[in-house]
């Protein structure tokens, strides 16, 4: 059980890293793009917006804590 927990923790750190909100935002943006695209909306802009928004939020959050 301990080994499974360590493995899951390792995989989490490996892919998700220090800020889990980034992974959640990526997943949400992918789902939103899929839904909009299937409704006939040209939704290529959703992912870049999510990336820029989430990266800014995460980085500036660190800066505000230290600044």
């Amino acid at each position, binding site marked *: 059980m301990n080994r499974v927990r360590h493995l899951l923790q390792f995989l989490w750190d490996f*892919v998700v890293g220090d800020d889990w909100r980034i992974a959640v935002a*990526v997943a949400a943006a992918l789902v939103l793009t899929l839904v909009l695209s299937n409704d006939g909306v040209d939704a290529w802009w959703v992912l870049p917006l999510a990336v820029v928004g989430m990266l800014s939020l995460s980085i500036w959050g660190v800066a505000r804590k230290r600044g």
Partner: protein
Amino acid sequence: MSGTEVGLVVSVFIACAVEATEALTIVLAVGATRSWRSAMFGVGAAVLALGAVIAALGPALTALPINVLRAVVGGLLLTFGLQWLRKAVLRASGLKALHDESAAFAEEQRLASSAGAVEARFDGYSFLVSFKGSFLEGLEVVFIALTFGANQRDVPLAAAAAAAAVLVVVCAGYALKAPLARVPENSLKFVVGVMLTSFGLFWGGEGVHAHWPGGETALLVINPTLALFAVGTVASLRHYLQAPAAKSGVVNA
């Protein structure tokens, strides 16, 4: 070779060179301090374990339908790339310590020296540290090469780029017998972060039926735009972090 294939080769080569440099530092430190033979056994065991991971994941990934593959693996690559880019921006702006191979080498040597007597026939410490370092850094190499290769439906090209990077780093390390401290690792990580994120964006978007304006040529816009955004963020952060110091300087004067 198409533009996307050039991007794949460059991204995989740089990412793998950075990871191989970090693994080399660990192996060199343990080998030079304790036992070259056991350290090399550790590297060999890590290569075998990584081979098993590739054999298990490679065919499974390439068997997936292209849209599912691009959505899932593109999403993973995007998350992974954003992690690299976030760290690179924090390092470049001074919010996180820069990675220093000389310091890492010295620390590994200190730990190796204080780990008790060296076993004459087989040194378990050298083997384990060398295995762990090579396997963990190698796992990132495998992840990057497999995701890029599978998305582009050209795993052999990605594997060749990864192997070339590892070979170059190993040859350089063998020639110098010292950590590759002059490799501009932090700058390279910045470039890799931008490229992983760009390709993750592109493939992830395609996987969920987004139609990028201009098709594959969109990457020629996504990549430099993201790089400019990251560089701009670093500049803004540096300005923001210097502002209180500047203000206090005015008050003191």
